[in-house]
């Protein structure tokens, strides 16, 4: 039986030197940004806020709400929740559509008066093997309890979007190796953007516990 290998990850953040001072500038940045930047600003957030969820689940929404102080756009951007089936371009298009529509309804383009500009960034992820393996569901739970939270990020979000598997590594292993499609589906149905990584870990453990 193929064992599940837990892999932590570390993130190296890279600055592009590109920035926006108003919402029209943000729109332009998003339209031209590389895929890695869109992914970074909608997902790497998890790695930076392990314990404390920010007001919204992506950097674009937080910037609009906090730095520009445009809570309307912040709320609208916060509602963009990628599904595992979405590509990065789907996420980009959704962001562009929301900002474009918002700007078309107002006369003055909201800008930072006292806030900080939006800095476009990208990241590289380096995988770091933990040498922790599981060959059944009980071992999986035992190891999941102790791995670094970055492993949760790596096996869910990196697997789905950057590595483009479309599903989390957990779900793939549950279904293809353990033959537990029911558990795989339950894990994929978790609304991952509503949790911190620690919250996600607990949620998955709880689903596994019920299946044992």
């Amino acid at each position, binding site marked *: 039986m193929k064992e599940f290998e837990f892999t932590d990850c570390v993130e190296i953040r890279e600055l592009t030197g590109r920035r926006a001072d108003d919402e029209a500038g943000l729109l332009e940045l998003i339209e031209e940004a590389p895929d890695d930047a869109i992914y970074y600003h909608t997902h790497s957030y998890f790695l930076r806020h392990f314990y*404390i969820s920010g007001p919204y689940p992506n950097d674009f929404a937080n910037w609009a709400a906090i730095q520009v102080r445009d809570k309307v756009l912040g709320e609208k951007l916060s509602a963009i929740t990628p599904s595992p089936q979405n590509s990065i371009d789907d996420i980009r298009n959704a962001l562009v559509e929301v900002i474009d529509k918002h700007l078309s309804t107002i006369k003055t383009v909201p800008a930072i008066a006292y806030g900080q500009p939006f800095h476009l960034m990208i990241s590289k992820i380096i995988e770091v093997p*933990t040498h922790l393996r599981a060959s059944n569901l009980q071992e999986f739970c035992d190891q999941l309890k102790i791995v*670094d939270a970055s492993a949760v990020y790596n096996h869910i979000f990196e697997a789905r979007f950057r590595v483009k598997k479309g599903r989390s590594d957990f779900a793939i292993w549950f279904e293809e190796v353990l033959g537990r499609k029911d558990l795989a589906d339950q894990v994929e149905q978790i609304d991952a953007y509503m949790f911190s990584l620690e919250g996600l870990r607990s949620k998955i453990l709880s689903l596994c516990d019920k299946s044992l």
Partner: protein
Amino acid sequence: MDHLIWESYRTIAPAGTVDLGYRLADMLKDKSLLHVNSTRWGGGVAEMLHRIVPLLQNLGINTRWDVIEGTPAFYQVTKSFHNALQGNQQDISEEMYNAYLKVNRFNGRKMDLNADMVVIHDPQPAPLIYKRKKGSVWLWRCHIDASRPQRKVWNFLRDFVSDYDGAIFSLPDFAQKLTIPQHLIYPSIDPLSDKNRDLSEEEINRVLEKYQIPRNKPIICQVSRFDRFKDPLGVIQAYQMVKKYNDCCLVLAGGGAADDPEGAQVLAEVKAAAGNDPDVIILDLPPDSNVEINAFQRASTVILQKSLKEGFGLTVAEAMWKAKPVIGGFVGGITVQIVYGQTGYTVNSVEGAAYRIRYLLNNPEAARRIGENAREYTRRNFLVTRHIIDYLSLMVCYLKKR
């Protein structure tokens, strides 16, 4: 150099971090790292290298730290560079540029710059890049707030920086238009240093007694140089607004006034603004007052860093690590450290600061919750353990692909 042990951080760093450090170091067994800066003692960069270098060595990374030798004229030029990169108008002559290059050529000839990765800190040794050997990776680490540099000086420096494999900045706002990758690494504090280690009640009481700080009322404290950008006068105004409703005392602990004419002037203005209020304690401390600052922060109910302009502001991380609610100015790195309402409050005015002080003094449960969040946030993001992981990750990223 201090002998520091990575394992000592196991119960302090987030779970898994120490082991992650071992595993990353394992991937770099045969690699060497060299740090170069301009001074062994004094200043934030040297202070940080005194912690980072021994920890990397303890992790088994072949790490060295070397310092360039300069002439008084050289340090005069680099001080002007520093000011110019921070946006202050400076006149730098051709002769000064030549003195800068001459010192770097001298150091380039005599230093052993062989390492798999070389990290050059700040502008002083930047031209040493001409000594890079094929196969080694050179990174330029900029600790300065270079968000609005004087263009002529930056253009001169950019010619050297562009030859590096990458640059590292402390905040996104400091990034430049460069053709090389620019990385973001936040500065850090060491939880085991004198400024941040746990103190016993006796140690805290001894310091407070020495400086005659009352213990029978809440302490509001700001630790910072007597500098207009730290807004000490705004802090006194906020305290005076609070004092109408809540009995408390204010500690303004700073330094630098002795050897800085502007600092002395600001200190005089602060004393005048405080008047005869016995509950305002103004302290001009020597640079090695680490335990004293630690004690002031630990004894405080609320900590302020009401800066009007700020680079990163590590005093905020220091206070957050001590589980204190911090009220900071909405500027620079403070906005990265304080998540509004969760790990502290950022404010934009004296009135905003006063309101939040009153709120925290009267809601101890909220202050406790924010303080605990702040400590956890700092544990994850601003401790030296994270800084070490960042350096190891960069080494893996650059050296493993070669």
